[in-house]
Structures are given as structure tokens and as C-alpha cells.
């Protein structure tokens, strides 16, 4: 019955369908709604993300392949969907007031966020490299526009341009990689590549080269060294709620795709790519943390911190076991909550024109707005990796899964964990600097930040509650992550 099959396909792709539907709906309604009511589009987009979350539930119950094996709706994809959509929903809530404040409240903004999210959803579920490429482009192109959404601000334009030029360049690498893998194995289906390579004994050089090129392309998207140069500039120039989105959701989705490609397709070549991941992890952590040390701009500091966090994720990634996948997924969930939360606080405190981003602008926040300061401290401490927060358990499981692979990679991976541990102490310095400013410094008298609006308050509450929940009672999410890891067709 082709009709029923088609319906099943739609069910398995339900989140993307709903996100795109709402995106298109907003685009259609946009011209009919007056400039004063554009904010309603934001709420519409928020409803869209909520419905998408519900539809993830539907997709979960009809897991399986969709559209001739192009899309694999497995537990893994479902997990990443939840992470990505939650990030998008929180970013939308944080954008509502920001866009009003900056005078750029337009429906298309929300439509772009939804399209980007749909693209990330495809990335998470893609079982075929060209489909993944489409997802990557959907999310990237929307992101380029979003990064430049403050059209009259030079920095924002610069961010958009940089992101676009380097991003297209990186995408080309990815595409080239796909071509080589196809040339070597005769297929672009991720699970079929695995079978083709498995039969070949030692993986052919062409396939490895293809993998290397894909690593470059995807490494660019997740902002890991040595492809991280553009990251801080883009994150700093983009409107802060967009930064919240860019620093979280695309990373989660692209890491998901990397997991599929590296673990599933190239699981038999783990010994080759381990060293690439190993070197990149060390570089990423050191560059991110050391550069963050000297930042005086909180937004830029958080940008570097997100590079450092990509490094910690790579530590779990290097494990190349299903435990490693679970650790990466848990880390992503934790990371998204705390990072979006932190950037939303920065959004709120930025004032019009994002003038107040320096660390000293946070002076005395603990006195002026104790609840907001407490929330921000929670996010920062979680990013730092303090126990009883999500960030600690993320690191904990990442390190643990890496050490667990000690049998395979010997002392190298132990050193990797030690380096990661040392890095997380370096990180403590700059996170604490903000807390020092908030609580220990004399409050500046010249301005008081505005009160938190209900929309932002709700978003912060969700992020903070999630950070604590994952930090204290991680069992459910952890089981979910493990089930997700086991749903991938791994070699071992």
C-alpha cells in the first residue's frame, strides 16, 4: 500500500514537516500582519516548536527508515531532535523582547529559525550523505541570514559575511568528501558504507581521504580546532539570541551526524580517525580555554567557552564505543541547556544595541537582580563543571567513557582525559571572573538592567531547572542516551 507507506514516511519525518509548515505559515502571514504585531509571529513559531516536540513523540513510536532509507528515525535521531528543538524554542522565547528592543521585530526571523531547526532535524536523522548535505545547507543558509539580522550593525554584517564565505567553503569540503566516499564504496547510504568498508578489510585510501574532507567540513560547523577561527567573530557579531541558537543546536545536530558517519560508516576505520579526533580535541580545548581567559567581553568569552566545550565533547567522541555515543549525547543535552541559558542572560543584560557586554557591566548584578544573577551563576558553574549541575555529569560521563576505551587506545586516551581535566580547571578562572563581578564588585550606579519579562523568565526557568535536573537526577536522560546509542547499527 503506497498510501500507507507514504503516511508512515510523513510520521517519521513529522517534526520537520511541522517546523517547515509553521515556517511557511509565518512567511505567508507576515505581510498581512502589521508591523506592530510581528511579535505574534514569534509566539506562533514557539507554538510550532512545541508541536514539533509533540510530534517527536509520534515519530518515536513509529521508528524506522523513511523515504527509501534516506532518513532513519531511530532513538538516536529522536534524542537529538528533542535537544535541538528545545534549544530553538528557548532561543525563540529569548528573541521576542530582544527584537523589540533592537527594532528588528520581523516574522521572517522566526521563519528562519524554524527552517534552520528543520535542517538540523534532518541532520540528526539522515542516513544518507546527500540528504545530510541538504540538512546541513538548510540549517547553514538560514543561520547565515540570522547572523546578519541586525542589518544596520557593522559587526553583524561582518559575522554574516564571514560565516557565509567560510561556511560555504567548508560545505564544499563536505561535499567533496561525499563524492570520494561514493567513489570508493559505490554508495552514499551511511549503513551501506559500513558494509562496503567492512568487506574491504583495510579501508581504501580514497574512503579515508573522503572521511578526512568530511571531518574538515563538519569540524567547521561544530567549531573545533583547527577550524575554529571564525567562531568567536560570528558568535560575537550575531544577535545574541541567534548566538544562543548557533552555539547550541547546530553543534548538537552536526555532532550527531558526525557520530553517524564516524561510528557507523567508518566504525572499522576507528584507528585512523581516532588520532584526528585526539589532536583536534587537545587543540580545541586549549585554544578555547586559553583564549577565553583573556576576554573582557562576556559574549565573546562564552563564544570561546563553547569552543572549549566542543573539545570536551570530542574527548567522549574519541572513545569510539557505544558508551562514548551515550556520553556525547548526554553532554549535548547538558551543554545546550546551560549554553542557551547563559546566552539568554547575556541577551537580556545587553541593553539596546548590545552595549553592555563587558564583564564590568555585570558588577553588582547579585544585588540588583538576585534571581537573574543566581540563574546566570548556575549556568556558569555548570559550564565550569561543578557537581550537582548538568555540566559536571556531562564531563564526568565524557571522561568516564574515554577512560573506558583505555583497553583499545592505551595511555593516549588517559592523557587526553588528564588534559581535559586540567583544561576544565583553566576554564574555572574565566567563569568565576563573571561571578566575581556579579557578586564581589561594587555595583555600578549609572544604570539598572530592566526586569525579566515572563517569556524570558520562563525560558530561563526551563534552562535552569533542566540544568539542575540533569545534574542531580540524570538516570532517565542517561538511559535514553544509552538507548539512543544502542539504536545505531555499530560494528562493535
Amino acid at each position, binding site marked *: 500500500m503506497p498510501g500507507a507507506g507514504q503516511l508512515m514516511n510523513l510520521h517519521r519525518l513529522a517534526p520537520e514537516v511541522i517546523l517547515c509548515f509553521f515556517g511557511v505559515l509565518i512567511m505567508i502571514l507576515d505581510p498581512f500582519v502589521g508591523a506592530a504585531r510581528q511579535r505574534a509571529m514569534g509566539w506562533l513559531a514557539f507554538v510550532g516548536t512545541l508541536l514539533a516536540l509533540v510530534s517527536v513523540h509520534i515519530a518515536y513510536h513509529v521508528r524506522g527508515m523513511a523515504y527509501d532509507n534516506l532518513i532513519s528515525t531511530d532513538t538516536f535521531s529522536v534524542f537529538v531532535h528533542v535537544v535541538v528543538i528545545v534549544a530553538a524554542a528557548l532561543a525563540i522565547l529569548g528573541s521576542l523582547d530582544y527584537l523589540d528592543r533592537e527594532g528588528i521585530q520581523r516574522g521572517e526571523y522566526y521563519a528562519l529559525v524554524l527552517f534552520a531547526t528543520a535542517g538540523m532535524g534532518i541532520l540528526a536523522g539522515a542516513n544518507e550523505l546527500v540528504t545530510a548535505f541538504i540538512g546541513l545547507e538548510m540549517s547553514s543558509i538560514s543561520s547565515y541570514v540570522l547572523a546578519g539580522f541586525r542589518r544596520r550593525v557593522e559587526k553583524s554584517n561582518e559575522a554574516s559575511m564571514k560565516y557565509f564565505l567560510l561556511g560555504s567553503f567548508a560545505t564544499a569540503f563536505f561535499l567533496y568528501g561525499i563524492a570520494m566516499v561514493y567513489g570508493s564504496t559505490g554508495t552514499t547510504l551511511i549503513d551501506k558504507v559500513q558494509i562496503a568498508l567492512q568487506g574491504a578489510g583495510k579501508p581504501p585510501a580514497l574512503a579515508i581521504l573522503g572521511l578526512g574532507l568530511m571531518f574538515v567540513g563538519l569540524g567547521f560547523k561544530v567549531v573545533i580546532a583547527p577550524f575554529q577561527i571564525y567562531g568567536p567573530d560570528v558568535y560575537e557579531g550575531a544577535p545574541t539570541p541567534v548566538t544562543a541558537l548557533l552555539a547550541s543546536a547546530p553543534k548538537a545536530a552536526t555532532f550527531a551526524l558526525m557520530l553517524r558517519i564516524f561510528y557507523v560508516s567508518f566504525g572499522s576505520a576507528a584507528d585512523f580517525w581516532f588520532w584526528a579526533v585526539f589532536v583536534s580535541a587537545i587543540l580545541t580545548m586549549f585554544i578555547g580555554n586559553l583564549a577565553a581567559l583573556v576576554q573582557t567581553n562576556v559574549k565573546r568569552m562564552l563564544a570561546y567557552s563553547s569552543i572549549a566545550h566542543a573539545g570536551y565533547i570530542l574527548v567522549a567522541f574519541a572513545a569510539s564505543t557505544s558508551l562514548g555515543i551515550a556520553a556525547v549525547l548526554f553532554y549535548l543535552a547538558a551543554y545546550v541547556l546551560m549554553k542557551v541559558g547563559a546566552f539568554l542572560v547575556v541577551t537580556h543584560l545587553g541593553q539596546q544595541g548590545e552595549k553592555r557586554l563587558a564583564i564590568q557591566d555585570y558588577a553588582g548584578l547579585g*544585588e540588583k537582580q*538576585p534571581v537573574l544573577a543566581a540563574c546566570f551563576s548556575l549556568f556558569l*558553574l555548570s559550564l565550569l563543571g*561543578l*557537581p*550537582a549541575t548538568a555540566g*559536571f555529569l556531562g564531563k*564526568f*560521563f565524557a*571522561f*568516564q567513557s574515554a*577512560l*573506558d576505551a*583505555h583497553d583499545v587506545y592505551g595511555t593516549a586516551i*588517559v592523557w587526553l*582525559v*588528564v588534559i581535559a*581535566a*586540567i583544561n*576544565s*580547571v583553566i576554564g*574555572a*578562572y574565566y567563569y*568565576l571572573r563573571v561571578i*566575581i563581578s556579579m*557578586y*564581589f564588585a561594587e555595583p555600578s550606579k549609572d544604570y539598572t538592567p530592566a526586569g525579566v519579562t515572563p517569556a524570558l523568565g520562563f525560558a530561563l526557568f526551563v534552562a535552569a531547572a533542566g540544568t539542575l535536573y540533569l545534574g542531580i537526577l*540524570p*538516570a532517565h536522560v*542517561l*538511559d535514553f542516551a*544509552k538507548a539512543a546509542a544502542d539504536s545505531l547499527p555499530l560494528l562493535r
Partner: protein
Amino acid sequence: MGNQPFLLTVITFLPLLSVAALLLLRSDDHVWIRRIALAASVAEFALSLFLLPKFDLANPNYQFEELHDWIARWNIHYHLGVDGISLFLVLLTTFLTPIAILCSWESIRENVKGFFVSLLVIETAMIGVFVSLDLFLFFVFWELTLIPMYFMIGMWGHERRIYAAVKFILYTMFGSILMLVAILWLYGLSGTFDLDGIQQYLASASLPATTELLLFGAFFLAFAIKVPLFPLHTWLPDAHTEAPTAGSVILAGVMLKLGTYGILRFCVPLFPEAAHKMAPYIGALAIIGIVYGALVATVQTDLKRLVAYTSVSHLGFVVLGIFAFNTTAIQGAIYQMLNHGVSTGALFLAVGMLYDRRHTHEIKQYGGLATPMPILMSFFLFIALSSLALPPLNGFIGEFLILIGVFQGHHQWASWAASGAVLSAIYLLWAYQRVALGEVTVEKNRTLPDASTREKLILATMAVAILFMGVASPLFTRRMAASVDNILTRVNPPQNASQRPAAIPCMGAPAAKLPAPGGAAAMAAIAERQAQ
């Protein structure tokens, strides 16, 4: 002791619960914030006393155990319990917290709510460290002690508080993160975070010597920074000096013991061979710490810094005692932990009271204070005497037991360490002389008020504790004996076990009378019976 299934949980989390109550109060309602914090901490102390009657002396294992699944997939449990070692450290914590609250009654005027919240969160975290029997849980509490203390130093400290707070937290975090890696490594080997499980695994499987040494090193580094052992002590003088009085009391009184407790609970019994191998070096560092701390304390011009350096010296004794690996020395070490908590805590309280009056720690600014405030200065002298180990006060018992124990194995160690005891008399008495005796040198000081009722209450409580611990030491050591022996059976190879010198359960047994170890054991048994 299964009849108290929730006691430890309640003791651990009661302060946190009272934090919730504090958060409900208006932040300018200082009176009630103080009252509720004090009431909660006193109730906590009373509650913790319930541990004593139910505690079974003869049982070397953990008591009041609680065991629940926490994160089942990673085999992480919520596992609590106390033995003779942690029992008194829990009591020390619950005893010092109300004192710390009381001493901050008037001196903390800004952000009062935040201060007491921090203090109570630290209490929960510290008790949690002492009662956790799961390494994951232990680490969570261990790290949790840092943040409130960081805030306490950074927000309510003195001039260079931010520098001190950052130094404190970065030092400690650096140590503990490597411990985390070691914990994960142990988990990888044994498949469990449970202390008993790991103990059993390590007893059955013999690790390669290098692995054991690395694991020992990672744990030891974390604890040695906390203690602090020379040369890792440089954060301590800053943190102690810059912290508010209550912060110093908690820091010196309890937090430093987290380090020595960790060494005794984890480093030594889990990795006995590495501990034996490293003992000469660690002993040497401890002795350097004892002498160096004492010498540096002698030349301080800042009273609070002087007291801070005495910690380096006194904690050196504790570490030395632990690494002598015999019952007497380890009992002495545990006892010295308690003594140091009480005596040094009291010293910081007295110094804090001077600071409240004059807002300076400079010794030069004082002099002849016995004339305007005889009561406060008498207490100060009494506390100083306890800290320099004058019999029959508490400090004497601890140092004496340590020195006897150490002497049995290492004559040289003992003789060097004994010099620290002499030096402590010099720096403390000299400090007392410069502060209290002679003519009043600074005119302002003539009109300083003597101790208020609140201060008298605080100091008298501490003095009673000092005296009580000095004369009633068997009450403490008897409860430690079984657990200490339990640790020693793991540390010392079985063939030596019979030759282990036994405990000296009361202070009445001087070193000269110490016959062959067997005789001491018999004597101890008699003393035991008499005491019961």
C-alpha cells in the same frame, strides 16, 4: 545499626533544608535570619549527638549505613555511613557551625542572608564528605564545599579578598580534578564507585605498581592541597587571612580536615603499598611543614596570618601521624584533627573579636590589651596554651600520641617533629606577650570594651570543649580504636600485624612506661575495661 535508617540523611541535609527556610525570609529581616540560622545549626548539633549513644564501639565497620540506587546505569549509589574516624569529624562540624554563626552575629552586616545561606550549605557539604561511602557522592560533596567558601571569602572577606578567593578555589579545583580522573580510573578497573566494593576489588586484584602509585598520587595531591601539606600550602595564609572570622573558623576548623580525612580514608587503605613507598617522602614534607610553618608563624606581624601558619605546622603533625602506620599515631592524628579544629577555630574567634574592635590584624596595633580587656585576654591565653599543647589540655593528647607513635618506627622523625612543639610555644606565647602584656601601647586601645556576653558565651564554650577533650580523651579514642585497627590491617602486611603497638587509650600512660608492644596491648585492654 539498622534502626536509624534516615539519621545520617537527616543530619546531612538539615542545614540545606534550613537554607530553604532562610530563602523564604525577606532579605532585610536580619534578626530572624540570624535566629533561624542559629536555631537550625543548634538543632543540627543536637541531632548529631544522637549518633553517640547508638554508636557501637566494638564494630569496626560503618554504622548507620544507608544504601540506595542513584544512577543505576553507572553503578552510582547513595551510600552513607560513619565509623570511628568520621563520627567525630561530623560532630566537630556540627559543633563549630553554630559557633561560627554566633561569631558572625554582629560583624556581618551586608547581605546577611547570603552569608548564613553559604555557611549552612558548607555545613551540608562538609558532613556529606565525611559520611559518603560512594566515591561519586563523595566527590559531589567535596566540590560543593568550594563554592560557598569561595563566596564567603570573596564577599565578606577583607581587603585582598578576591585574590584570596580565586587562589583558594583554583588551587583546590586543580587538585580535585585529577582526583576525579583517578576515581574514574578506579571505576574502570573495579566497575563500582562504592568504597567497600573498590576496597574488595583492590584487595583481590593486585594492581601494577605504577598504576597504584599514579592513583595514590592523584588522590594524595587533592588531599595534600587541602591539608595543606608543604609546599602546596601557599593558598592557605591568604585564604585564612582574608576570610571573615566565621570563614576562617570553618576553613581551619573543618575544611582542612577534609584533606587529612581523605588521606586516612582513601589514600592509605586503598593503596597501601604506594603509601608505604611514599611514606618517607611524605613524612619528610610533613616535618618540613611542621618546622617551616612554625618558623614562618614566628616572624609574622599580622596576627591572623600567624594563626594561619600555625595550621600548616599542626596539620603537618597529623599527616606525620597517619604515615607512621600504627594505632597510636593514627589515633593521635585523628585526635589532633579534632583538637586543631577546636583550638585553631578558637584562636581565629579571638583574633576576630580583636578585629571587630580595631579593624586591624597588625600585632603592632595591639599591646597591653590585658589591662582593658582581662577576660578576653585570659581566654586568648587559655586557647593559645591549648594550641601549644600544654597538658592537660586537648592539644597535648594529640601531639603526644602522635609523637609516641611516630617514635616507635622513626626516631628521627619524632625528634624533628618535637621541635615543632617547642617552636609552637615560642610563637604563640610571644604573640600573646606582644598583644596582651606590658603597657598599653596604642592610646585607642585603652577604651576597648571587654568581651560581651555573646563573646563570653562563645569563648567559654570553646574553653570547655578544650578542657573536656584534654581530660576525657578515652571517650574519644575508644570509639576510634576499632576503625583505626580496621584501616591498619589493610595497610600493614599481616605478618607484622601481631607486632603492631596497640593504642594508648588514656593520657595517663607516659612514654617512659611503654614496655614491649605486647605489654602495651595488655595495658590498653585493662584500661579499656576500666573505662567501661
